[in-house]
């Protein structure tokens, strides 16, 4: 404590260390939160179910997603990222996941919602991609369909397939640890034939 600069430096470093400490305490306080999220998804209509230009099965769904995620918000929550994924099993892969819709919930008052939408992203059965082709795909993904048909193994797995719709959420904090969880809703099935 011999000079102005010495004291200023000591104060600054100690203040920053204490700030890190209270942020860690704030993040830890998220563990004390009791969670009670609820969600429900209905497939209102299968709009069409065809082979896409790449040769993979592709389906368009109209969904009704309703959920109450208000209990996930704490004082340390910046936003909640939520997405709906369709999950199914094929002979080749035990788990295939396709993200159909996502959204960002910025505050607690928006966390109880119901949306009526078609799937935001294409629902293609692309999962039969071998690892060798996956690297090839990365460099050729900007090319047109006739080239990508050489990189994908044709995915024709969706007819008659049972699938789950799982709502995933990531609770993003203002400081500290991010929590993620999901709710699985099963009992959905594709039609036997294209339409």
């Amino acid at each position, binding site marked *: 404590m011999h000079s102005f600069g010495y004291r200023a430096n000591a*104060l600054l470093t100690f203040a920053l260390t204490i700030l890190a400490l209270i942020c860690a305490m704030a993040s830890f306080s998220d563990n004390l939160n009791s969670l009670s999220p609820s969600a429900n998804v209905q497939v209102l209509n299968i709009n069409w179910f065809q082979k896409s230009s790449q040769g993979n099965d592709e389906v368009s769904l109209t969904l009704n997603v309703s959920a109450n995620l208000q209990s996930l918000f704490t004082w340390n929550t910046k936003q909640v990222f939520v997405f709906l994924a369709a999950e199914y099993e094929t002979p080749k892969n035990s788990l295939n996941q396709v993200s159909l819709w996502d959204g960002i919930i910025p505050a607690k008052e928006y966390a109880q919602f119901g949306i009526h939408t078609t799937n935001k992203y294409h629902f293609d059965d692309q999962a039969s991609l071998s690892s060798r082709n996956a690297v090839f795909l990365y460099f050729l993904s900007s090319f047109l369909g006739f080239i990508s048909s050489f990189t994908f193994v044709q995915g024709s797995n969706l007819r008659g397939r049972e699938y789950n719709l799982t709502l995933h959420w990531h609770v993003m904090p203002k400081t500290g640890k991010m929590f993620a969880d999901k709710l699985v809703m099963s009992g959905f099935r594709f039609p036997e034939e294209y339409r």
Partner: protein
Amino acid sequence: MDWQGQKQAEQLLQILLLAFAAAAFATGYALGSFKTMVLTYASGVIVTTLITVPNWPFFNRRPLKWLDPIEAEKHPKPLPQQIAAK
């Protein structure tokens, strides 16, 4: 600052920052507002800076007592010993 004042300033620094941090966390958690916590703590840091960093007079109330010049002459400084060349 004199020596006692420096020690006082350091102690004040640590205690004030810890106290403001505890108060900031308590109010932020109770009000459910992260912003409140950060603002309370930031104002605490500024207050602590104003109290402990500048060279206030009350930190200099116990100056060292230097000897008077005559007193110093009575106790001459010892001469350095002759050291053999290495």
